[in-house]
């Protein structure tokens, strides 16, 4: 269990995290989503006691991270890819970390096996590819067999096989009852791995929701209807939970809250001709972009926003 309580952190004039509060629960994979520069890494560093919040508190397992007597058994973290001295072997890197907390050497062998680096454990880490560096970082995070696992962009640099592997690993860890908190700027990746999402933008909380809930919001997609009798069809369809909007063309309607089949059936029953009936799917990516659009730190001058984005609900910042 991780509790972030009203945390604010600035670097000079830049406010990286702005009165952010959320809770990460055990037993599920929680995705930490946001565009680049949203404050994800800063938040994770504050969880690990590496950066000090200007105000607010972060507790892990009920205590500040620094107050744990065996911190590696409490929390395992991967904060940066390849944060390893290039001249040191994978084994010695893990040994140096294990010794501080009194973790037995047998556990080093175990985590090396777990990430598949046993055969190169004695090679200098400088010769590792980015993907192998990530896996060594994951081995280090799991070294203390921690209750809480924090991974900052763990899929960066992994090949598709590695990505699949890490998804399974994270789900397994969560199933064992651990708290798994994974940051990413790709919602597509998180949709496959995480059950719960914490979305941030410009250091503020944008959404604290489950992936299913987000999907449901998004699934309220619209249907584009073309009919010569738009006014009558519109009146016929509009109802609780159904929105009908007319576009610039008097023969066109956008209907949300009803699926294409229902609209077609009702039009037929009322004898209204329908010339086109096009369901408009909205992807999770679109939903994510919609959510974070106003909080993207570095925005290209003309960001092509997809049309047909359902509504503006959930737009916090």
């Amino acid at each position, binding site marked *: 269990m991780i509790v972030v309580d009203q945390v604010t952190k600035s670097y000079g004039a830049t406010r990286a995290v702005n009165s952010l509060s959320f809770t990460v629960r055990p037993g599920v994979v929680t995705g930490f989503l946001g565009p680049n520069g949203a404050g994800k890494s800063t938040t994770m560093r504050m969880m690990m006691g590496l950066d000090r919040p200007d105000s607010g508190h972060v507790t892990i397992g009920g205590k500040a991270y620094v107050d744990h007597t065996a*911190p590696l058994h409490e929390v395992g973290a991967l904060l940066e890819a390849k*944060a390893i001295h*290039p001249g040191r072997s994978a084994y010695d890197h893990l040994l140096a*970390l294990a010794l501080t907390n009194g973790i037995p050497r047998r556990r080093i062998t175990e985590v090396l*096996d777990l990430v*598949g680096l046993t055969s*190169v454990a004695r090679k200098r880490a400088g010769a590792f590819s980015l993907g192998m560096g990530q896996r060594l970082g994951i081995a280090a995070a799991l070294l203390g*067999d921690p209750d809480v696992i924090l991974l900052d962009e763990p899929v960066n640099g992994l090949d598709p096989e590695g990505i699949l592997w890490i998804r399974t690993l994270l789900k397994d860890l969560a199933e064992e009852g651990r708290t798994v908190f994974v940051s990413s700027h790709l919602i597509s990746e998180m949709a496959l791995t995480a059950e719960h999402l914490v979305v941030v933008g410009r250091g503020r909380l944008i959404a604290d929701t489950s992936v299913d809930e987000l999907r449901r919001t998004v699934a309220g997609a619209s249907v584009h209807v073309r009919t010569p009798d738009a006014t009558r069809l519109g009146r016929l369809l509009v109802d609780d939970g159904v929105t009908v909007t007319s576009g610039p063309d008097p023969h066109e309607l956008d209907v949300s809250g009803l699926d294409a089949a229902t609209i077609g059936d009702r039009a037929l029953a009322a004898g209204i001709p329908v010339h086109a009936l096009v369901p408009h799917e909205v992807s999770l990516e679109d939903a994510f972009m919609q959510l974070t659009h106003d909080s993207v730190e570095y925005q290209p001058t003309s960001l092509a926003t997809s049309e047909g984005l359902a509504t503006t609900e959930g737009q916090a910042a």
Partner: protein
Amino acid sequence: MATTAVLDRPVPNRPVPTGGLRDAHDVARLRVTAWRVIASEWVKFRSLRSTVVTIAIALVVIIGFGALAAGVVSGNVTRPAGPGGGAGGGGAFASNPTAVSLAGMTLAQIIVGILGVLAITGEYSSGMIRATLAAVPRRLPVLWAKVLVIGVSTFVVAVPASFGAFALGQTILGTGRNTTLSDPGVLRAVLGSAVYLAAIALLGLGLGALLRHTAGAIGTLFGLLMVAPGLLPLVLPKSWGDSIVPYLPSNAGESFSSVAPKAGMLSAGGGALVLAAWLVVLLGVSAWLLRRRDA
């Protein structure tokens, strides 16, 4: 050192089930202690090839330069003629057989100083420092463990190097020109040189911890040890220079690592105290900043 081949290994198909640390006996033992942090720092220190290479170079420099200087003074090796032909030889230097045999210390101090710098800036440049401080969130044990590992390791290597260079140098100088450890001030100078090297390694560590940047820390170290002692007397008013220059780390060190301190310099005991004060202040400020700064 260039990376030649990029290794790559396939990931296992599924996470390998592991034992973990669920055994109550194992879990009860888990905690951060000072000795464990020292053991960890020792592993970091010894597991780098650069450590071994640096120490080997320091040994070669201390013993080799001492032998070379002794050879020049004794006439066994002819030194280049003309101005600037070697700092060794003639004058007071030739009449001080202890200093001749310890000629390599001037260069060796830079080498061990860099060793001290890299022990901490290497962690900042690679990002390893965040893993280190996550493992030891109280932070200060990491710095003290580095002080102990670097200080003791350098001293343990410097003592035989210093005595070895002295013994070899005196043998090359030959009877009549040489001195023995029983002569006044000689034992203190030989042992003091070893202490001085350990102190400079810690000075490097302190600068590295303070500046967190390899090039900046090495530059400062070089300036403090090699440039300031020669430059300050030239640029400062004489009265200022006289009161500042003896307190520089290299001059403070020289007063206890030479047989007889130069005129205007501190006494052996005074020099040792001043050098110790440099370390206490530098490491103290570094420790304070380590606690305060974001990693």
